[in-house]
């Protein structure tokens, strides 16, 4: 069981560009699965390499169970990283690849062989021992890379987008597998992804990174229910943001006043955010305003409407049956459930 703490972790590759990782503070819980989520280039891989000891931080500290590990070489950290592009050793067989870590530890050959076989069973590629990496598909290589890491029973497992090359079906299976192994072996795992859905499905906690800076570190549902900024809400699929003034549990906007008990700020200029799934059409009462349907799309599992409320347009995701009830151009009451409204501080940058 290893608890990993990053404090003020910073990496500057060159002085002229902004830091790749900027003052990152993170408590990665022991035995849990933490997702490092963020758009491409936000510093996820860089952070992982620093934890693994493959890159030296410019400043800041990394501790395992409270002890700084910055002076410990990568091979002695017990943190194994699985790379984004798998990097199987091309001139070795699959068995030699998987057994590599054990060979470095001078484990007996026979034992290596049996453990390699076990690993191949675990990642559901039995009988692949004698193949060469180039004879495998991307998804198969990814699973071999995972097996090669797991075989050394790391204290900390660092997975850099390990599922990016799998098809939907295999991805679900591998998610289950990673989750199962992770819980069984109770390995502290950091999992990099740029797919918010994957992070939500897999992680105990998500650390969201933009431009090398930590935006929010929370349990998955918090990113939907209480994102700390408009950018975060947008990254998690939020679409409706209405600027206004917040005071005494109510937010006053250009299209009306809404009750909003839940908020990230105490008062002042703020933004009303409501997820498209929480916007209901055709029911009036408290917290509702009249709108005009602009357009709609029938997606199958749900329907998506765009509704004009004065100068503001909001998106509503509804039961697919509603496409039969409303036509484009109809006037409909639009209700924002007060418990689903989340008031965020004013947007720092409006794209």
């Amino acid at each position, binding site marked *: 069981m290893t608890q990993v703490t990053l404090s003020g972790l910073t990496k500057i590759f060159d002085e002229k560009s902004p830091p790749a990782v900027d003052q990152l503070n993170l408590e990665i819980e022991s035995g849990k699965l933490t997702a490092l989520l963020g758009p491409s280039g936000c510093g996820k891989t860089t952070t992982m390499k620093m934890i693994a000891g*493959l890159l030296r931080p410019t400043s800041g500290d990394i501790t395992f169970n409270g002890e700084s590990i910055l002076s410990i070489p990568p*091979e002695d950290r017990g943190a*194994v990283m699985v790379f984004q592009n798998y990097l199987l050793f091309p*001139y070795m067989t699959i068995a030699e690849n998987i057994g590599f870590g054990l060979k470095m530890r001078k484990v007996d050959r026979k034992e290596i062989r049996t453990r390699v076989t076990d690993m191949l069973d675990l990642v559901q590629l039995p009988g692949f021992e004698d193949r060469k990496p180039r004879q495998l598909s991307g998804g198969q290589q990814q699973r071999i890379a995972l097996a090669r890491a797991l075989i050394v029973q790391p204290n900390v497992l660092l997975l850099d987008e390990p599922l990016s090359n799998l098809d939907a079906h295999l991805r679900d299976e591998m998610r289950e597998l990673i989750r199962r192994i992770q819980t069984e072996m109770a390995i502290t795992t950091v999992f990099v992804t740029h797919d918010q859905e994957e992070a939500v499905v897999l992680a105990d906690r998500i650390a969201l990174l933009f431009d090398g800076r930590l935006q929010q570190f929370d349990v998955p549902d918090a990113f939907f229910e209480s994102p700390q900024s408009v950018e975060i809400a947008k990254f998690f699929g939020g679409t409706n943001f209405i600027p206004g003034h917040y005071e005494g549990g109510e937010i006053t906007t250009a299209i009306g006043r809404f009750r909003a008990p839940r908020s990230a700020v105490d008062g002042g200029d703020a933004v009303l955010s409501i997820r498209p799934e929480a916007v209901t059409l055709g029911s009036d009462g408290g917290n509702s305003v009249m709108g005009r349907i602009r357009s709609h799309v029938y997606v199958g599992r749900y329907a998506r409407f765009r509704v004009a409320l004065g100068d503001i347009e909001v998106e509503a995701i509804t039961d697919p049956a509603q496409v039969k009830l409303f036509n484009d151009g109809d006037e409909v009451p639009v209700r924002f459930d007060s418990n689903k409204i989340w008031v965020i501080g004013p947007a720092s940058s409006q794209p």
Partner: protein
Amino acid sequence: MKWPEPVSRTRRLSRTSLSEKAAQRLTIALLLTPAILVILLLFMGGLITGFLRSLGYFPLIGLNDFNFAAYTTIFTDNGFIRSFILTFHIAFTSTLIASILAVASAMLLRPAFRGKRFVQFIFSLNLTIPHLVGAVGVLYLFSGSGLVSRLATGAGLIDSPAGFPAMVNDPWAIGIIIQYVWKEIPFIGVIVLAILLSVGEDYESVARSLGANRWQAFRNVTLPLIMPGVVSASVIVFAFTFGAFEIPWLLGSTFPKALPVLAFESYTDVDLAARPQAMAMAMVIAVMSSLMILAYMKVSRRYVRS
């Protein structure tokens, strides 16, 4: 020419593409013919002529029979055998030392550092310097009256320049080897460096992360990745140093002489009867170079696999 009615579209397509392929191949062959002819005339012509003369067939000077006399002579000649061993020693030792030092330099030159471009420029500079200049340098530095010898005397390491170990025209061919190593390190090194930079450091990172220390990562990951490049470059170096004439001629001992020198001297001998022997030696150099290269490649391949 009329094709039979096509059975299906695909069949017709494949037929067309087949004939097109044949035509393409013919075009390529025709385009290559001049180059192939030149190679055949120069290389094979030279080799065949040389081979015939080594068998004693040289009508111009009245030698019309085929015999193995030249070969019998050289193979029973102790001097020839010694020359052969010396030449092998020069080629093998220079290639081995140059390869090791080249890999080490390439590893040192790989990471980014201040002034790297300048260092790299200096490193590859002597690729442009002729071997002859290098030989003069070796003479100037390492001969009995050379700079190193005089410095060593000045520093009191040896009593007089005469006490300096023979490194030029010496039986161990140290001067020759120094010159070859100096000249070939950048040749192999530049190739290895290019491979190292294109492969990147991620494979080593994986190895380190999986528990390999620096040396293990180098031995098990870096080396196998660069080995094909090292082998190809050093095979060229081996073949060159086995057959090259000028450096052993300048820096070599009077006995034994390196094979190319021996062959050259036999060839230019006033006694025309020595010519078949010169040609036989040249044939031996050619065959041995080829054999060595084959063996060397086999050994290196096995090394890569393990």
